[in-house]
């Protein structure tokens, strides 16, 4: 399939991204570059200096809300991408409202409890919408341990499913971006076989 046909096809779809940190910012940029039509992005946080070790932001954006900064960056790589933002901390009951109409959703949280809450909410309140989770991306090396596992049509997970981020094992750009781009790759795979 030619690039122009692929981009025309992807432009028809809406993808939700829950979180605009390391996973969310990197997957959003990959999806925008690929030509996904609409991105719905939710985050409440602001860009900090420490984020730049792995998140798709720039020094000039420190202090900006992540949703605003990421919108700016997305428009710079693809001005045709429609970006809808929600500047809030998601709760279980918000999920269906915020992400309604999305064809696929990317789980891009940092905290494991938020991941659990969010995935549970998508599976229960947006049945039929696939969610691409991420689990295990801290540290460096061990590239071959990062995998994508399809659990079923509604749930996929990318990551090594074992390394938990902490002070002694922080998340660094390469592994974070690998997992985020793997999530984006799964999204595109799903959309390319969706009418």
């Amino acid at each position, binding site marked *: 399939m030619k690039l122009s046909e692929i981009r025309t096809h992807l432009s028809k779809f809406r993808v939700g991204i829950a*979180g605009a*940190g*390391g*996973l*969310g910012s990197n997957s959003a940029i990959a999806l925008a570059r690929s030509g996904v039509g609409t991105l719905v992005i939710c985050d409440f946080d602001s860009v900090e200096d420490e984020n730049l070790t792995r998140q798709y932001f720039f020094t000039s954006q420190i202090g900006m809300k992540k949703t605003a900064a990421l919108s700016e960056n997305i428009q710079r790589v693809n001005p045709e991408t429609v970006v809808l933002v929600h500047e809030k901390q998601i709760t279980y009951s918000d999920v269906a409202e915020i992400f309604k109409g999305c064809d696929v959703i990317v789980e*891009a*949280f*940092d*905290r*494991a*409890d938020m*991941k*659990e809450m969010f*995935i*549970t909410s998508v*599976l*229960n309140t947006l049945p039929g919408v696939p969610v691409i*989770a*991420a*689990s*295990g*991306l*801290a540290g460096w090396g061990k590239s071959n341990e990062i995998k994508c596992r399809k*659990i*079923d049509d509604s*749930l996929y*997970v990318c*990551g090594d*499913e*074992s*390394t*938990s*981020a*902490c002070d002694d094992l922080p*998340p660094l750009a390469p592994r*974070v971006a690998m*997992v985020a781009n793997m999530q984006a790759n799964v999204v595109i795979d799903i959309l390319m076989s969706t009418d």
Partner: protein
Amino acid sequence: MKILLNEREEEFNADSISVTEMLILKKFSYKLRIIKVNGVLISKELYDSTTINDGDIVHMLYLMSGG
């Protein structure tokens, strides 16, 4: 009874077990996870009362922080 757990065959010495019993027997102590039995998401409150039977397909996903 034999089940598929994350695509691998597992055997248990019982006719059926609860999700809670499965977690104890397999020493799955990490608490932040998603469990599906035969494609159905099982919420934590139902771990004690949901039974796993011979031939069932179980998926478990551990959620590691970072992202």
